C-alpha cells in the first residue's frame, strides 16, 4: 500500500479522492527510442482528464500502455489497489477499463444491435455463452445507451452503412455498454461536424459524473468545452498539469509549443 502514498506530481492538483487509476514511472522503448519516459499520472474517481500534446508526444502510446496493448519497459499501472501491469488486454478490460480508438473500430458486418449485444455481454467465458439464446430486440440497457448516443433509430442497420460520426458514437456506445469504471478516449471528436462535436462534448460531460474519463485531444476548442484538469505531454514525458488557465500561462508549455497550432488559437 505504501506505493500509493509517495507518488510525486509536478503540479499541485487538489486530490479529492483516492486515485482510481495510477501510472508510476511508466516507460516504454522501441528499439531504444523512449516513446514514453517516466510518466506519473493519477486520475481521481469520476474526474474528466484531458491529455494534450503535439503529434508524437506519446499520448496514444500512453493510452496503449494503460489498456495493455503494449507492455511497459519499466513502471507500473495500478487500478485502485490492484496492479494491472501486463495482465492482458481482456483482463484489463474486464476490470473496468474501456478503450475507444482513434479510427472507429466496430464490427462493420454486424448490425448496431449486434455490436451493442457483443459489448454489453458481461459473461465473457465461452461456456457461459454456449447456448445462451440471443434476443432479437435490444435490452433496456442497450436501448438506453443507443438512445443516449442517438443511434436508436438505426438499431437494425448494418454498421457499414453508418456515417463517420455515427460510427464514432457507436464505438462510444459500445465502450459505455461495457459499463466501465474508466473510459479511455482517443480523439473522440476527430472528423466530426461542429454540431456532432458539441453533442459529443455534452455526452462526455454527462459521463463525467458516473465514470472517470481520460481523453486525448488536439482540438483546444473541444478541450475547452469539456475539461477541468489538463496534462500536457511533450516528447514522451509529462510537461505540466493543471486547469486550462494554468496551462496556458505555464512558461514551459508556451516555450514547448511556441507558435504550434495546438495551443495558440485557444
Amino acid at each position, binding site marked *: 500500500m505504501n506505493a500509493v502514498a509517495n507518488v510525486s506530481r509536478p503540479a499541485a492538483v487538489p486530490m479529492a479522492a483516492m486515485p482510481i487509476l495510477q501510472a508510476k514511472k511508466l516507460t516504454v522503448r522501441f528499439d531504444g527510442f523512449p516513446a514514453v519516459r517516466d510518466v506519473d499520472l493519477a486520475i481521481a474517481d469520476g474526474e474528466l482528464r484531458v491529455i494534450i500534446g503535439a503529434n508524437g508526444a506519446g499520448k496514444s502510446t500512453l493510452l496503449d500502455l494503460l489498456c495493455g*496493448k503494449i507492455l511497459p519497459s519499466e513502471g507500473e499501472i495500478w487500478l485502485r489497489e490492484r496492479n494491472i501491469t501486463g495482465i492482458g488486454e*481482456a483482463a484489463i478490460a474486464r476490470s473496468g477499463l474501456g478503450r475507444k480508438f482513434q479510427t472507429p473500430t466496430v464490427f462493420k458486418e454486424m448490425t448496431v444491435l449486434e455490436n451493442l449485444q*457483443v459489448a454489453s455481454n458481461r459473461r465473457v467465458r465461452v461456456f457461459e*455463452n454456449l447456448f*445462451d439464446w440471443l434476443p432479437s430486440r435490444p435490452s433496456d440497457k442497450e436501448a438506453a445507451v443507443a438512445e443516449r448516443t442517438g443511434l436508436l433509430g438505426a438499431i437494425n442497420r448494418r454498421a457499414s452503412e453508418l456515417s463517420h460520426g455515427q460510427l464514432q458514437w457507436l464505438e462510444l456506445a459500445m465502450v459505455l455498454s461495457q459499463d466501465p469504471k474508466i473510459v479511455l478516449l482517443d480523439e473522440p471528436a476527430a472528423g466530426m461536424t461542429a454540431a456532432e462535436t458539441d453533442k459529443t462534448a455534452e455526452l462526455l460531460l454527462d459521463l463525467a459524473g458516473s465514470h472517470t474519463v481520460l481523453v486525448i485531444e488536439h482540438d483546444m476548442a473541444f478541450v475547452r468545452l469539456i475539461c477541468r484538469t489538463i496534462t500536457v505531454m511533450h516528447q514522451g514525458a509529462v510537461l505540466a498539469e493543471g486547469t486550462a488557465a494554468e496551462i496556458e500561462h505555464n512558461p514551459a508549455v508556451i516555450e514547448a509549443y511556441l507558435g504550434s497550432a495546438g495551443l495558440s488559437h485557444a
Partner: protein
Amino acid sequence: MDERMKHRTATIAAYLLFFAVIFALPFFLNSFWTNRVATYLVYSICAVGISLSWGYAGILSLGQGLFFGIGAYMLAMSLTLAVPENNPVPELMLLNMQPDAVRDLCCVTPGSFLWIPFRSVAFGMIAAIVVPCVLAAGLGYVMFKRRTTGVYVSIITLAFALIGQLLIINNQPLTGGFNGLANLAWLEIGGFEFDPYGPSIYYLVAGTLLAVVLVSRAMLSARIGQVLKAVREDEARARYLGYDVENYKLFIFCFSAGIAGLAGMLFTLTAEFASPSLMATSFSISMVIWAATGGRASLLGACIGALLVNFVGSVASESPAFQPVWPIVLGGLFVFVVLVMPNGIAGIVKDLIGRSGKARAVGQEVYP
C-alpha cells in the same frame, strides 16, 4: 424486419430440403451407392468441422486429417479386438513380436498395453472423439496463447499432422504401420449389427451429420456465434471488450477436431479399414477444398460442397469417357468455383433465394 425473417425462413427451407433428400436417398440407391453416399456424408461432416473453424473463426487448419485419422484408428483398434481370432493378442502384434514374448496384451510388444482399454467398443468410440479434442487442446493452447494467426496456424497444423502420420507408420508392431488396420468386426450395439452396405450405417451417418449441423447451427445462433463473428472481424476490438479471444478460438479448434474424430470413426464403419493415408496432407487439403467449394461461411454449403466434389470425382473417374482425364475435370471444377462462384455454392443458393440489400462485397475477406 421482414428481410431478416425472409432470409431465415429461406435458410431453414434449404436445410429441410437438403436433409429430406438425404434421408430419402437410400430408397432409390442400390447397396453399393448407399455405402458410397454414406462415405460422402462422412466427408460432409468433416467439411462442416472445417467450415466452423475456418468460416466462422478464421482458423484454417491444414492438419484436420490427423484428427480424422486418429478417430478412425481409435474405433479400428476396438473393432480389431472384437474379431474372435484377434484375442487375446491381435494378429499384427503376433507377427511383429519377439519370438519369446508373452502372448498377452500387456507386454507382447512395447506399448501394447495401450490397447487394453480398447477391448470395450464403447471406449473406442469415446476415445475417437476425446483424443482428437485433447490433442487439439494441447496444440491449440500453445498456438493461441502465443497469438499465432493466419497462415502460421495452417503451417503448424500441417507439420503436426505430418509428424502424426510418420510416427504411426514407423511403429508397425503397435499400429500396423503403413498398411493400417483391416480385418475389423462390424459395430454391434445392443445386439444390432451395423451392416456397412445396408441402410443402418447410412442412417447412422446421416443422423450424425444432422446432429452435428443442428448443434453447430444452435451454437452459431447463440451468443457464442455472435462473439465468434466479432472475433473473426476484429480480434483486437473483441479483446478490448473483455473477451479472452484465445479461449474462443481454442474452443472452436477443439470442437472441429472432435467433429473430425467423429467423422473418422464413421469412416472406419463405412470403409472397414483405417490407414495412415487418411492423415496425408493431400487428404487434409481435399477437406479444405470441399468446404471452400461449398462456400466457406455456410454449414449447408460445406455439406453440398463435399457431396458434389466427391460425386464428380468418383463418377468422372469411372465413366470411360472421362477416365483418362478425371483429375482435369476435378481441377477445372475448383478453378470454376473460385472464379465464377466466389462465395461457393452457398453464395449461389443465397443469390437464388434473392437476398435483398446490396450483394455483400463479393468474396472480399480480409485475411489476417
